[in-house]
């Protein structure tokens, strides 16, 4: 192989690598939670996954036995947010680490993250804010190593508050949340 051909081959390979490296653009929301994925040696790839991930999927909660229900309550805890924000607090990140480890242990479990808002503001805009809250939670878990297919997201906007008729901040703050629902064990 002549030196010129060799140089050309290396250049072609290098540019191919660069193009390949650039093509995978991060979705806009992903850089917001900024979690540092912990290398987890115990992680094993989940078993083949049987779930309706098409557009036809309805989100219905699975029936859980008492023990699993208790574990779900303990590990998949509701995450709370500041007013008009979808940033994850330190407390939320601690909770989500617990959630991630739980989901890794239950690799066939499929969960729904529902984003909710307080009753201030408009219904339309809050649909978007709830969506961003749910996706902030999902993005953290995916960056942590949970397969994306294990987590669905949706938004209820301000349509299903945990507390209604709030007048003070301590009440409003309980509505700005992302809740976990188990869709499949």
């Amino acid at each position, binding site marked *: 192989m002549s030196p010129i051909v060799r140089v050309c081959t290396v250049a072609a390979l290098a540019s191919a690598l660069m193009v390949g490296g650039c093509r995978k653009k991060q979705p806009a929301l992903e850089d917001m939670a900024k979690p540092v994925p912990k290398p987890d040696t115990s992680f094993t790839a989940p078993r083949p996954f049987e779930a309706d991930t098409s557009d036809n999927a309805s989100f219905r909660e699975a029936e859980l036995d008492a023990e699993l229900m208790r574990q779900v309550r303990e590990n998949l805890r509701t995450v709370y947010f500041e007013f008009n924000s979808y940033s994850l607090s330190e407390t939320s990140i601690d909770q989500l680490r617990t959630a991630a480890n739980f989901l890794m242990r239950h690799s066939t479990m499929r969960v729904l993250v529902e984003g909710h808002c307080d009753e201030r503001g408009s219904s*339309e805009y809050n649909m978007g804010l709830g969506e961003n809250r749910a996706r902030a939670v999902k993005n953290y878990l995916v960056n942590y190593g949970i397969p994306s297919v294990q987590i669905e997201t949706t938004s209820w906007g301000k349509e299903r508050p945990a507390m209604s008729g709030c007048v003070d901040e301590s009440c409003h703050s309980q509505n700005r949340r992302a809740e976990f629902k188990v869709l499949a064990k």
Partner: protein
Amino acid sequence: MKNQQFQIRNSRLKRYGAWCELVIVSWALSLHAEKIDLQVYASKFDSIPIAVLDFRALNAAVLTQDDPGQIIADDLEFCGRFHVVRMPKPDPARFAANNIGIFIDGEYAVTGEKVVLDCFVHDAVTGEEVAGKKYSGEKKFVRGMAHRYANFLLDMLFGERGPFESRIVFVEDRGSQKNLVVMDYDGYNQKKITSSGVNIFPAFIDSTTIVWTSFFRGKPDLYKGSIVTGTYDIFIFSRFVQASPAVSPLGDRIAYSSSVGGNLDIYICDLDGGNKRQITFHRAIDTSPCWSPTGYQIAFTSDRSGQPQIYVMDADGANVKRVTSVGKYQDSPAWSPRGDKIAYASMQNGKFDIWTVNPDGTGAAMVTSMPGNNEYPAWSPDGSHIAFSCSQRGVSDIYAVRPDGSGLRRITKSGNAKMPNWSPF
């Protein structure tokens, strides 16, 4: 049409294929040269003085709840272009005192479940009949007959369509249950469309079909249904969010917001749900689309500046321009059918009020100032009124107001009504 001389043909039989299936026999007396020309007469006044007499019952059954004279008087009063005087029978002294040139009277006969209703316009000076109409149909449609006559009067006097047969759909909010209810524009004939779940963002496609967001599948999808039959079906759906539908005034496309692309952006599809395309591609929340009356532009809400504000763009997503500047939180844009104003809800000092602004961003003006949140503006099809929901002390009802803030009227009384949308004509 406004400047044309008004003419009515003799013995014209018309069948209106309308919602309530009224069969209307429309007839009138031919106009002689010396008779009053109603459009010329109407053009002399800002507010036309008009008398509405009590309608006569031709047999024993009297319509007290749905007195046609009262319904017509309320319609004319509502539209703000009349000074309505009620009187039991013609009274020349009161005609003169109120400068009244024309009056309305009529009679009806109730036979079992059927009603025949005659309505007339008279010249108040000569007492001559100028124009009349006869309606017949089921008794439960008598309000519709009276509304239709009020629309006929508006057409006759101004050459314009009236909003009196239009309907308003709204959300009946019972906390965990939010259902759609449709009613006449004046609050009567309420009919529940959905019976369970969370149903929000109703929007009329045409006078009998609506599209809205429902959480039937545990997530927000768009549904389409008939307010006549009450049947509905899923329309636009995915694993993601579909919300805030808005139908183009030409009736050919639907704009909505969806999170299919990652966060809420504006999408457009054809009326059958096909040909979906994404119009905005911003990492901010883009939602609440509404169409300009020509269908060439879309106003929407975006928080790309950091807070939700109203923007306008071409219907293909080009030429995005911010419209609102006063206030930190604005949403729910609604473009007037006349095209000159965009109404929206603006939150200032922790409460929403209805504002209007010119589409170029000038002339922002506050319309409502009642206590509580005044939000979700929706224009009447003739552009004369804005319906909105007003909440005071946790009680929310639908109100209507003229764009200049006058003529405020409460339409619902149940205390749990919000998010109105006004039907086309």
